[in-house]
């Protein structure tokens, strides 16, 4: 995928607009803690080495998403999270919707409430994804589009097998119209989501106000 700077900005503006529609007037920049005691950093409280990453969020979104505030406590983690997204954007062979399909499929396996809401919103803005596809992913159901379903299936198989996939699983992925480069790109998207899903889980990161319209729960 290759999102232009303008495309990214438009997506971010749309996200903030959805938040405004949900009644998010302002975002108090007060450092806090999650229920499991992890720091939620602000631009001011974050380690100096992640200054650029925090600026990326405040400039594009107008505030620091809770998950970024938590990840900032581990500069290696936050830097890697943003670097991996940039790599996907710069060199990726998957389309924006395909990246979001993998991201949401993995978030659903991990039952990451923060990330499922987040990637639903992302699917309506930065990585445009059809509504019925988002719905299937949220419900852990087959996607009607056969090619995207093959992608969802392949991603879940890799993740559940800790990387071990049978030759036949890979063959069905390739037969659906994907290539070997895309198989490895899927691994990069999985890594990207391991960071947010697992950090979101252990820290019990709360939903940002602007993502509340897309809240997800298992039942």
């Amino acid at each position, binding site marked *: 995928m290759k999102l232009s700077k303008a495309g990214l900005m438009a997506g971010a503006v749309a996200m903030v607009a959805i938040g405004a529609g949900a009644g998010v007037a302002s975002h108090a920049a007060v450092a806090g803690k999650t229920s499991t005691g992890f720091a939620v950093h602000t631009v001011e409280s974050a380690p100096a080495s992640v200054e650029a990453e925090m600026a990326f969020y405040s400039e594009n979104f107008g505030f620091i998403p809770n998950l970024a505030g938590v990840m900032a*406590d581990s500069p290696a983690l936050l830097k890697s999270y943003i670097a991996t997204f940039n790599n996907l954007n710069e060199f990726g062979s998957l389309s924006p919707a395909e990246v979001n399909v993998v991201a949401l499929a993995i978030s659903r396996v991990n039952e990451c409430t923060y990330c499922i809401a987040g990637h639903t919103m992302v699917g309506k803005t930065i990585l445009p994804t059809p509504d019925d596809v988002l719905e299937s992913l949220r419900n852990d159901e087959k996607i009607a589009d056969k090619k995207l379903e093959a992608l969802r299936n392949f991603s879940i198989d890799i993740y559940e*097998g800790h*990387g071990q996939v049978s030759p036949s699983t890979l063959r069905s992925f390739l037969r659906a119209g994907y290539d070997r480069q*895309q198989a*490895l790109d899927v691994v*990069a998207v999985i890594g990207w989501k391991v960071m947010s899903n697992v950090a979101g889980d*252990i820290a019990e990161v709360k939903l940002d106000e602007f993502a509340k319209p897309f809240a997800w729960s298992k039942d």
Partner: protein
Amino acid sequence: MINGFTLNDPSTVTGEQKVIFEKAEQGFGFVPNIVNGFSESPVLAEAMLDLYGKFSSTSLDPIESHVVLQTINVLNECLYCVPAHSTGARKNGVEESLDESLRKNQPLDDEKLESLRVFTSEMVDQRGHVTGEQFNAFIDAGWSKRAALDVVFFITVKTLTNYGNHITGTDIDEVFQPMEWEPEAAPAS
């Protein structure tokens, strides 16, 4: 190599692949087969190299980092990564006996390192859904919340390399071959 993946001749690669080979050369002193095989996906190769460059930004020292990384390699049964990390760690002064325990997935003598090993295993096996009791045991052993997030970072590093290697079936570089490793056979049922 498996599944149609191949190793490229470093003297013939061009474009983004060439950039990746140069970065690997700078970081590792040579182009390991893993980077060579991954370079078919510049995203995966670049992400791996980026993350390998961030070990020193974590709160874990090189021995602690090795405990986390090797524990994950063994759990994910990465035939390429276990020998690669044994070779690197031993060269950098990690005690052989420590690495041997990790390769056999056995408890460590040092209590604090053992709690790091156990927490890492739980995080991998339970996909981050650790219980309050497991998390508190980690914190009570003297680790910070930042260290818990750093473990997430290392799990990501190994998600890229362990999973990627399972797909490409990377041939083990000659330099890592003395440290070859096989998973323990599953107990007969």
